[in-house]
């Protein structure tokens, strides 16, 4: 099924302009958590990575790019975002498709048609080396927000790599508010929704039992969740909420769950580790911003990781429509924690993996994107230096093996206003 899907998707990914490229002599980061390799080579052909590392030979006919003094990595994967759903967040109605709160549907919502591949946020992210993103809808009137996608940031009209990659549900403070004011209500709603989905499954006559709360379309959308065929991303922050979610799997054994947020995860890290579920966490949350985050610390990710939890970095309700480019700064900051007494940081290689392969694995697409292992999609970035460092920037970006333009609204303004000297014509003529 997955292979078939991949084939279909590949056909749609238009690797027409993909060329054979060999990037040589760079510091190569595979993105799987292994150490960077000096003097490595990365070869991309037909839109896929052929090989990456030392001793990789350059195929004949390849375009050879010398990356001496540069770093070469897989593109950054935004672990949790609303990228491509909003051009402007506030006061520009019509440009924001994050929230479907006024519509009749919830779980059935699929973000795919709302993603605008030409959004300026996508171009800005691409220019900073973000090549893929996990995109979730915002929950409106129901705890179920709908189905999210995995997208690329390429300069073409085919952004969606995997539609309906997951269902997203709010089960913490946010979910309680939506459900009517309490976590208890949220959990009842959750159970009821899955029960309605379970009841619907296999009913050829389409008949439904009484007292249904979900529309047929919404209930149908939850059938693959109950069956474990579609990943369920659950946003929770408080330690007890995390445990409640883990316990749900006893009631619904088919559920395939990943946690989003988990600010207090470190306090129950061993329980999460034992469950084997993925966590997509905010990197630097350290304020008791709400009563479900009293234990917030920047050491959360490091401690969960040390306890054996599988962790990726995401931007949960943190400027999630546009600042995915700051994930690499956040990852670097987690490395910095290793030098702070009493704090728990993350190794450089693991920190980088948390913004490349780990988020891809968390949403079940690690075989396709997020690393430079052979066969992965040809998403490659050449950086001016260490990509987790503040003064580094991408110098070249490929997505599916296609070299990408890096200019955008911001770079054009930058160029227009480099000089404020009066010229023969107004600034509007500088393009």
């Amino acid at each position, binding site marked *: 099924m997955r292979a078939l899907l991949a084939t279909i998707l590949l056909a749609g990914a238009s690797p027409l302009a993909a060329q054979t490229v060999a990037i040589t002599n760079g510091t190569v980061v595979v993105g799987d958590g292994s150490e960077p390799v000096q003097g490595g080579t990365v070869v991309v052909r037909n839109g896929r990575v052929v090989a990456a590392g030392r001793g990789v030979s350059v195929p004949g006919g390849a375009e050879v790019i010398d990356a001496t003094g540069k770093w070469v990595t897989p593109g950054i994967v935004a672990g949790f975002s609303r990228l491509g759903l909003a051009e*402007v967040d*506030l006061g520009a109605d019509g440009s924001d498709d994050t929230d479907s709160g006024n519509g009749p549907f919830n779980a059935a919502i699929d973000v795919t048609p709302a993603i605008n591949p030409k959004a300026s946020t996508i171009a800005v992210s691409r220019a900073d080396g973000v090549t893929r993103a996990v995109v979730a809808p915002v929950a409106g009137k129901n705890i179920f927000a709908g189905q999210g996608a995995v997208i690329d940031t390429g300069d073409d009209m085919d952004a969606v790599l995997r539609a309906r990659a997951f269902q997203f549900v709010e089960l913490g403070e946010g979910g309680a508010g939506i459900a009517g004011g309490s976590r208890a209500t949220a959990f009842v709603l959750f159970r009821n929704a899955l029960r309605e989905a379970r009841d619907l499954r296999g009913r050829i006559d389409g008949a439904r039992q009484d007292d249904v709360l979900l529309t047929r379309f919404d209930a149908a959308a939850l059938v693959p969740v109950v069956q474990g065929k579609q990943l369920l991303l659950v946003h929770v922050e408080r330690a007890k909420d995390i445990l409640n979610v883990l316990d749900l799997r006893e009631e619904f054994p088919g559920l395939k769950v990943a946690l989003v947020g988990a600010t207090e995860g470190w306090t129950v890290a061993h329980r999460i580790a034992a469950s084997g579920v993925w966590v997509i966490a905010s990197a630097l949350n350290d304020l008791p911003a709400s009563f479900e985050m*009293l234990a917030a610390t920047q050491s959360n990710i490091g401690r969960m990781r040390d306890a054996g939890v599988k962790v990726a970095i995401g931007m949960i309700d943190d*400027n999630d429509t*546009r600042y995915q480019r700051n994930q690499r700064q956040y990852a670097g900051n987690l490395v*910095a924690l290793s030098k702070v007494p*009493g704090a728990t940081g993350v190794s450089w290689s693991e920190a980088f993996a948390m913004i490349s392969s780990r988020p891809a694995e968390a949403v079940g697409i690690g075989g396709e994107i997020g690393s430079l292992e052979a066969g992965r999609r040809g998403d490659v970035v050449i950086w001016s230096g260490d990509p987790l460092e503040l003064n580094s920037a991408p110098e070249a970006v490929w997505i599916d093996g296609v070299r990408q333009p890096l200019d955008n609204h*911001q770079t054009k303004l930058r160029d227009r206003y480099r000089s404020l000297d009066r010229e023969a014509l107004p600034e509007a003529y500088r393009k």
Partner: protein
Amino acid sequence: MRGALAAIFAMALAGCAALAPPPKSKPGTVHIAENPYPSTYHPYGGVPTLIRNATVLDGEGGRIDNGSVLLVDGKVQAVGGADLTAPEGATVIDAQGHYVTPGIIDIHSHLGDYPSPGVQSLSDGNEATSPARPEVWAEHSVWPQDPGFSRAMANGGITSLQILPGSANLFGGRSVVLKNVPSRTVQGMKFPGAPYGLKMACGENPKRVYGSKNQMPQTRMGNIAYVRQTWIKAKEYDRKWTKYEKSGGEIPAEDLAMDTLRGVLHGKILVHNHCYRADEEAIMIDVAKEFGYKISAFHHAVESYKIADLLRENGICSAMWADWYGFKMESYDAINENIAYVQKAGACAIVHSDDPNGIQRLNQEAAKAMASGKRVGIDISEATAWTWLSGNPAKALGISDQTGSLKAGKMADVVLWNGNPFSAYTRPDKVWIDGALLYDSANPKLRPVSDFELGQPGERDVK
């Protein structure tokens, strides 16, 4: 109480007039208190400390490699090279490979008035009941137990900060400058002698907040009209009081809102104007000229790069983010080179946060801005970039004679970093405020915990 006092004075005056021949003109004797909530902050004191072998950025654009900084009696006593010696009994810190800088000053924070946890009961930043509320003072909203203060110090090296009212109103109210030292009261945090600020706002927020209530202002032209009308009232108020103070006569009615605006007209209160767009900044510059006041800084000035020349000519600072963009229409044209362009034009650049998370890494924001400049050929030194974090905000806040740079005689507000503070891998190692060591990464006892966090999960934790 104040009114009663004024009445007593008035009666006394009347009584005198009955006995003696009327004077030609007698100065008024009623004065409006300028500092009714005085600072009670006292430095905590520390031991004489010599930091040696450090890279010193002085906050005014100077740099000393292998430099030394000597802190004595709460002041910077000397800054120099390897030859600087420690007085007897001084603590000597070998800072090989580390940087020493002035403490960072965040000119735009809402810590305390929008604290953590962000619940309605503690949401005290916007008195959004009238577009002009110059009578409210941010200090009366500041909750000293906001856990954000300690994060800003321990993770961000913030030693002073300005707390502003929000931007719902055209005139948001008075700001307050604080020392980032935990205290039971806001008075215990107030920066001694710092002038007050007035928060003003242009653009989207006021017109959205009041337009949605079907009140003025509903448009940008409504914003400006309302601002001008308010200044006209302030001028009239000022004339009445100035006349009274010079010549006596009938005591004018006192008005809390107008007192603040009068303070601005007299240059005693500094204007901090939330203004994103270049064209609106240009209009606000003309408004200021029309009514005879000065704008100290434009805040959130994401388009300052478009009029950096105008800002230089008018001596107005721009407080900016490194890379925030697009979250609203007026931030749509933000560019990463904004700060570097403003610097290059010779105008005053400041890095600010407006955010309880961002305030924990303003040094990194400066690093990103510096790097963005470098990529387009604007070579900005680390020493210059540090002026964005301490020297320039101190100037714009009117406290640069006391803090903001490592110069002899200034307050010993100092951060020792465990590496290069323009790196993502660097954190504060030690923070001194007025010479008192208030954070030491190696000493769990020197880690403040607010009342709110006591007994909560993670109370003793490193944050």
